[in-house]
């Protein structure tokens, strides 16, 4: 039975697209058929992060409007055959997403894949609502700072009221993924602690992804971080998160400050 997952946050720049690509690749590496879908119509990014920007011929909007078949619009990843991308249109805006059209494409995707991962646009408007509409599971990407946490809280309220599952009185499974976590700044109390975030959002923690240059490097070469550098810390955090989504119990790895020789000599964190 296919599972539809939405990666959402309310706030922009917290790492939704990075997370979509990284989780999609990690789940596909385990042999499951995965499709990542970009809902950010007009500001598409997922194709860049997946390194498929030159391969987009037909997009999500073409399929919704019946100008192309779903099969024509799906872009199979060159590195991982079990991973596909449905790109957003760059020339249209969110009004091109229709409620019925999205529902129809989601139904078709459910038949073809084990996982459908929807990359939500920022905000709480049409694009974000339609991205979460058909989800069974939500991953709320949150940075450890108050504006991101409050926006996440708002999104959680919408997940509990605007999704198909909520309207059927079922509960949508929700997880917090803490992204761009800077252990050094957390230690200096310059960021909200993990406990603070979880206390405010009162949801289970899916993982903690450290702020890292590896994520930036992966974006630059157009590859999900879990493919380009599987052994780096953020990639491992995403791999563990994907295993948790798959139902495995994995111990939580909280990033800590690495002490440099200099720092150790002077008894301070670097």
């Amino acid at each position: 039975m296919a599972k539809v997952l939405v990666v959402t946050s309310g706030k922009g720049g917290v790492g939704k697209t990075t997370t979509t690509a990284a989780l999609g690749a990690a789940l596909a590496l385990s042999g499951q058929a995965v499709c990542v879908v970009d809902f950010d119509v007009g500001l598409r990014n997922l194709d860049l992060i997946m390194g498929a920007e030159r391969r987009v011929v037909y997009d999500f909007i073409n399929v919704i409007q019946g100008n192309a078949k779903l099969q024509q619009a799906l872009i199979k990843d060159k590195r991982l055959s079990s991973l596909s991308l449905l790109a957003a249109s760059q020339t249209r805006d969110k009004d091109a997403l229709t409620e019925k059209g999205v529902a129809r494409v989601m139904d078709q995707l459910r038949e073809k894949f084990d996982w459908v991962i929807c990359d939500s646009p920022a905000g709480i408007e049409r694009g974000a609502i339609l991205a979460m509409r058909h989800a069974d599971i939500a991953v709320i990407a949150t940075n450890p700072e108050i504006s991101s946490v409050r926006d996440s809280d708002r999104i959680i309220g919408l997940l509990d009221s605007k999704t198909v599952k909520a309207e059927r009185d079922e509960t949508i499974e929700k997880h917090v993924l803490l992204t761009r976590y800077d252990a050094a700044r957390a230690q200096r109390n310059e960021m909200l602690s993990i406990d603070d975030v979880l206390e405010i959002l009162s949801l289970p923690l899916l993982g903690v992804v450290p702020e890292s240059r590896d994520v930036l490097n992966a974006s630059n070469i157009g590859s999900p971080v879990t493919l380009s550098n599987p052994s780096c810390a953020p990639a491992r955090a995403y791999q563990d998160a994907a295993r948790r989504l798959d139902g495995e119990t994995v111990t939580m790895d909280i990033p800590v400050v690495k002490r440099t020789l200099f720092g150790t000599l002077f008894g301070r964190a670097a």
Partner: protein
Amino acid sequence: MVVSVAVCSQRLFRIVGRSFLAFVLTPELPLSDWISELDDWIARSNGFFDGRPLVVDFSRVRLTKVEVSGLLAQLEARNLRIIGAEGVNPTWVGPMLGPLPSGGKPMSVVETLSGDDRDTEEVADVPAEAEPTSMMLEGSVRSGQSIVFPRGDITVTGSVASGAELIAGGSIHVYGSLRGRAIAGSKGNKKARIFCNSLEAELLAIGGLYKTADELESELRGQAIQAWLDGQVLMTTAQG
């Protein structure tokens, strides 16, 4: 098969038609004169409209959509509780007001609610025969949600997020952290109280008297507190 469905649905789901009394305001041109007459009336009979549902009948004036919403905003600014409108295009009055059929008797409607659909459901499915005087919310109230329950107390088992608000005719009980706004005694009940396990509220109000976060004693932050009215003063103390 059909019979069993019918029996089943009768047992689980009831729809009862009821009519309620509402006052009807009938604006006349020129509107500015009519508004000032209304203000005179309110000044002469203080509290007359408090908590009473009102319907606005626009059939004697020809107004544009902008003028209608402007007038409704002016009425709301006077704390008048408008539940419906007659004699205008039904799409004009906004999603908050259920427009009444023209020529209908003054009848309606469940409480007007703001906030998400989910909140609306929780009040709307109250059974007709026994109207509960308290509302129980399991879990947390999220940022941006607005829970309105004029009939009595609201109890929240989780936390109330920053940017959320609770408006209760009676008291408010929050068993987690209160980070949003709590407005108790919204209809003027001065005996209403607010209780919470951890005070981080943006605003506390009882019976129309309020304290903002800046006015709350800083040593009470994070404490379990109780708020009540002592005459015209909103008092807050830590719970033992």
